[in-house]
């Protein structure tokens, strides 16, 4: 026998009442599949995960209170039902939730792009269950604007396609609206007309219209408690009417009825005993025949007649009822007129609060974005300064001196971490050497001529403790330089002798050997070697196409790439 819970928003408390009743009097009916939409899917998940119903009730009331607190109820900008749900689910869903509910929990969802109904029953992880439940409770406009995704596809509340998923013939339907469901409030009104909203039959009656409003506007605590009680009563009535209340022994015998036909007697008895011990500590010697006139069953039924909501749930509800009546503010806002009159005052305050909270939440993101902006600005500044320098400067290609003080903009060394993050990628420590300003005025014209043709930048890539790779970039076209320099590891083509693994080293592994060589020494020496090479071949290259060379520097095994463009 399967159960199916209708979606009903804040009236979900009705399902709590029904669930309590089933747990108390007919736990054997909860062993099969349970389906639901919207709030019904939450109830189904709670039942299948066997969560304590007292806590569930209190969590439900927490959300209701949260929603009622705001001036415009759940429509207030500072209230987000999705956040509330997520918090609650994160807190209560067990770690192995997906294992418990897999194949048994059937959640009805509406696919956003074609409006078709989808029933999800297979879950691979706890996150999967959580996401499906969040999708199942998403009402566009009420919960937010963009529906959440489940496995990459956007879904929303199942109430838009199938609000009461019926899995097969033996499905007991539960709906808080008086209508043609197995368990539903039987209003004291002989209704004649109903409508059928997404598979849920709903009578057009005063009570139902009243309930309809409560789906999105959380009702008062006393209404909720009545609803819960009603759910319990209706479920109990259903069980009584269909003779589903049995003592544990009879349930066990019934459940082995089919088993004993196929399995050997011994196994059947074993199973029977197992169920006995699982269920309750009643010790009985295994009887095979089911006794319809069981005294125990009758006693159970009689007890159930006077049954009431269990203490755990009752106390929770009572607590909220009391707290709702306590305090001056509660008393004041209990009257609708006062609430309505105060709206012009409360709504702006609410909006203000919402805006402030929104800003404070977004603050970290904003500061990060500011930092990004600064970074871009600094790079832009680099460009401007460089292009200005270039017009003024001369480059002496044969002697390039690394002047530590001139590296202020571009060069970061391993000791100044803050600089590093400002200029470099996290994965790379990058050294950028720009053209050095030349002091020698005599050779200015000559060098200027040359620089116009060959603008280069030396970049050093520190790959790990052993290897370091200086790279000389062509900067004859200004805009390439910063892009080229900041490009990721993946984007540039590594030199031949550099393996992939070298490139993917973490920042943490990058260590520059202080004791072996001074950073400046390395750079100097290498660049010298590179550039001396370059100067040697300079004349030959003048007439050639751009050439990329890889040169193995003998002392340190470092690689140097030179780009020469004519």
């Amino acid at each position, binding site marked *: 026998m399967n159960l199916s819970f209708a979606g009903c928003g804040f009236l979900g408390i009705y399902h709590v009442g029904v669930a309590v009743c089933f747990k108390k009097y007919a736990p054997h009916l909860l062993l099969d599949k349970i389906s639901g939409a919207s709030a019904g899917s939450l109830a189904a998940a709670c039942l299948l995960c066997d969560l304590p119903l007292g806590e569930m009730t209190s969590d439900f009331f927490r959300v209701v209170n949260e929603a009622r607190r705001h001036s415009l109820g759940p429509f207030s900008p500072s209230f987000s039902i999705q956040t509330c749900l997520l918090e609650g689910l994160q807190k209560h869903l067990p770690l192995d939730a997906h294992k418990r509910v897999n194949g048994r929990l059937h959640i009805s969802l509406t696919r956003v792009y074609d409006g078709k109904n989808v029933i999800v029953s297979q879950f691979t992880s706890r996150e999967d269950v959580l996401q499906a439940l969040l999708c199942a409770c998403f009402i566009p406009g009420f919960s937010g604007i963009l529906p959440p995704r489940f496995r990459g596809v956007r879904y929303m509340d199942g109430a838009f396609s199938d609000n009461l998923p019926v899995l097969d013939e033996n499905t007991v339907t539960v709906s808080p609206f008086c209508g*043609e469901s197995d368990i539903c409030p039987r209003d*004291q*009104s002989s209704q004649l007309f109903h409508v059928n909203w997404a598979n849920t039959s709903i009578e057009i009656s005063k009570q139902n219209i009243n309930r309809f409003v409560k789906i999105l506007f959380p009702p008062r605590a006393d209404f909720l408690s009545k609803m819960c009680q009603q759910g319990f009563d209706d479920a109990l009535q259903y069980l009584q009417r269909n003779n589903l209340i049995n003592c544990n022994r009879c349930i066990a015998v019934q459940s082995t009825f089919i088993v004993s036909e196929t399995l050997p007697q011994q196994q059947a008895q074993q199973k029977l005993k197992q169920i006995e011990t699982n269920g309750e500590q009643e010790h009985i010697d295994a009887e095979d025949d089911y006794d319809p006139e069981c005294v125990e069953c009758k006693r159970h039924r009689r007890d159930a007649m006077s049954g009431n909501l269990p203490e755990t749930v009752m106390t929770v509800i009572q607590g909220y009822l009391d707290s709702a009546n306590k305090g001056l503010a509660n008393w004041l806002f209990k009257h609708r007129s006062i609430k309505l009159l105060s709206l012009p005052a409360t709504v702006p305050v609410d909006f203000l609060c919402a805006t402030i909270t929104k800003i404070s939440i977004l603050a970290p993101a904003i500061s990060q974005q500011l930092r990004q902006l600064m970074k871009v600005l600094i790079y832009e500044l680099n460009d401007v300064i460089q292009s200005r320098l270039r017009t003024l400067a001369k480059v002496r290609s044969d002697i390039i001196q690394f002047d530590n003080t001139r590296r202020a903009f571009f060069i970061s060394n391993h000791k100044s971490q803050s600089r590093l993050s400002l200029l470099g990628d996290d994965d790379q420590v990058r050294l950028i050497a720009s053209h050095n300003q030349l002091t020698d005025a005599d050779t200015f014209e000559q060098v200027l001529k040359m620089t116009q043709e060959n603008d280069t930048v030396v970049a050093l890539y520190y790959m790990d403790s052993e290897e370091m790779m200086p790279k000389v970039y062509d900067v004859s076209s200004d805009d390439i330089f910063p892009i080229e320099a900041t490009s990721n590891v993946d984007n540039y083509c590594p030199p031949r002798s550099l393996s992939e693994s070298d490139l993917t080293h973490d920042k943490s592994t990058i260590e520059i050997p202080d004791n072996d060589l001074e950073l400046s020494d390395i750079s100097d020496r290498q660049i010298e070697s590179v550039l001396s090479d370059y100067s040697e071949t300079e004349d030959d290259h003048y007439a050639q196409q751009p050439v990329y060379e890889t040169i193995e520097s003998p002392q340190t095994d470092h690689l140097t790439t030179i780009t020469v463009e004519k």
Partner: protein
Amino acid sequence: MTEQTLEVCKAQSSGSSGWLNWTSTSSVMLRTVEKKILSILKTPYKGMYADIGPAVGTADKIWTICLNSESSNIPLVMLHGLGAGVALWVMNLDSLAAYRPVYAIDILGFGRSSRPKFTNDALVAEKQLVKSIEEWRREMNISKMILLGHSMGGFIATSYAISYPDRIKHLILADPWGFPEKPADVNSRYNVPLWVRALAVAVTPLNPFWALRAAGPLGQWVVEKTRPDIMRKFSTVLEDEKLISQYIHQCNAQTPSGESAFHTMMDGFGWAKYPMVKRINELREDIPITLLYGSRSWVDSSAGEKIKKLRPNSMVDLKVITGAGHHVYADKAEIFNKYVNEACATCDRVMNANHEPDDNIQTKGEGTESDQENENSPVQQPIDLNRNN
């Protein structure tokens, strides 16, 4: 062709055609849809207008379809519910007509029957409806019948049985309307807000299907959107589900005659002004009743229990069909047919016991009423019924 023109004339006389026809409905359209739905019947059927003369209006006609009229068993007469018509019995007619003649009629003021103006007095309107059925019976020359009524049809059938007990062999009520009394404290459990009550008060004077007519050309769409479940019930037998919504729309978008009669008999929002539970004792004790309720239906089956208690000396068979809603006959058609056939078979059996054990009875069962006391015994099913199970 002549029939068609005749019907067009009729439609014009009722004032719902021409370019003023906001609801986009006509008798011709209704006839076409009905024909399409009934075309899936395996048993050949006859459709006819029974002229009942000035019963309520000046010249009333009742649309009747009959199947297996050659059979000599006691005929079964079927009365539909509010807003329905003969075509909605499409899933039952074949099976029920296997053993006896079956007559399904559009109650006066509904479906394809004439739509005269009924009075504004609840009891008189009820009597008018009952009288129309009696006139129809006389016209059809049926001396005794098994009367089956669903919902509002059940109410009328019971009223008919009270007025003309001699004509009734067995009363079968499927989820009948109008039995329980209107409770005094309707709004005790919840405090219904003022605006809801105001809305209810505003809607109460309107006819039940006012929205459908107000929607005009969108009427069919309204039916499809509000009651997709009814269409789904018939999806197993009908290929085109839209036929049902079209049929319901065409039935109800015309002049609301029978509907207003129902509205007159109604008190408040769906209660009967003169509930049957109070009057059931007027029904002669020897008339056996079979009550079929859908387990999910809103119609309170406790009224059935009450009837059982009120009629200790007569046969009252109460059956609740699990998983069925108010439209029992369509929700669980097979079980419904089985129960109805079982109930009908008891009549044949009693009749056969009274007369010669020959099936071929020409005197259409003037069976003595006194013999029916023994029907309290559990129903036994004749062998020929097994085909249905």
